[in-house]
């Protein structure tokens, strides 16, 4: 059994997806942030809308800011969100 990946969504990415969190089991070959985004877009029109402008969506893997080529694997926590606006 492969452990699932926890996906978190924040701010307008969360609103477009329609959920703040989901667990998914990654198919073979989905092993980077970029591949995960491409695969998630096929899950629903909301997911597709959330990632319609990939340059506007940032990611973190296991609570650390990630890039498009950052590795993603079973058991990871991956978060997607717009550029941060705190402070």
């Amino acid at each position, binding site marked *: 059994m492969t452990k699932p990946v926890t996906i*978190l969504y*924040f*701010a*307008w990415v969360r609103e477009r997806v329609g959920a703040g969190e989901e667990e998914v089991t990654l198919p073979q070959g989905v092993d980077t942030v970029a591949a995960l985004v491409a695969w998630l877009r096929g899950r629903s029109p909301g997911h597709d809308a959330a990632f319609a402008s990939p340059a506007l969506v940032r990611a*973190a893997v296991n*609570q*650390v*800011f990630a890039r498009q080529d950052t590795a993603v694997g079973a058991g990871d*926590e991956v*978060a997607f*969100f*717009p*550029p*941060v*606006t*705190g*402070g």
Partner: protein
Amino acid sequence: MIRVRVQVADFDLKEETDALLAAAAEAGAVASFLGVVRSTAARPIAALTLEHYPAMTQPALEAIAAEAQRRFDLLGCTVIHRVGRLLPGARIVLVLAAARHRQAALDGTGYLIDWLKTGAPFWKSEELPDGTTRWVEAREEDAEASARW
């Protein structure tokens, strides 16, 4: 000493400064930055809501504070960031940096607030007077401000 807190509650500037100084022997300077919810005649808002990524926020703030402490040889620093719904005029964020001399305290404060704006997982949503909401967009100049350090 590094103190980092993410909280719904308000904070007290004097208490925080006194606590920082009590733990920062030999400090000669404390600089601070206080951010408040801004509503202007030209662009009024009814409220500001701050969302964050709880599992990541605390470690992200601690990493930023530790780097500020190291770079500017601070004797201590404090970062408090509020989350939830805040009304105009409410305090959002407080940064304090204690150092032996003034320039380190001022630079440490500038570094901390610049990186809070670009390196910590917070998102602001504005509530307009008509009840609609909109997400605040990240500003290019904020990225430039943190990149200059």
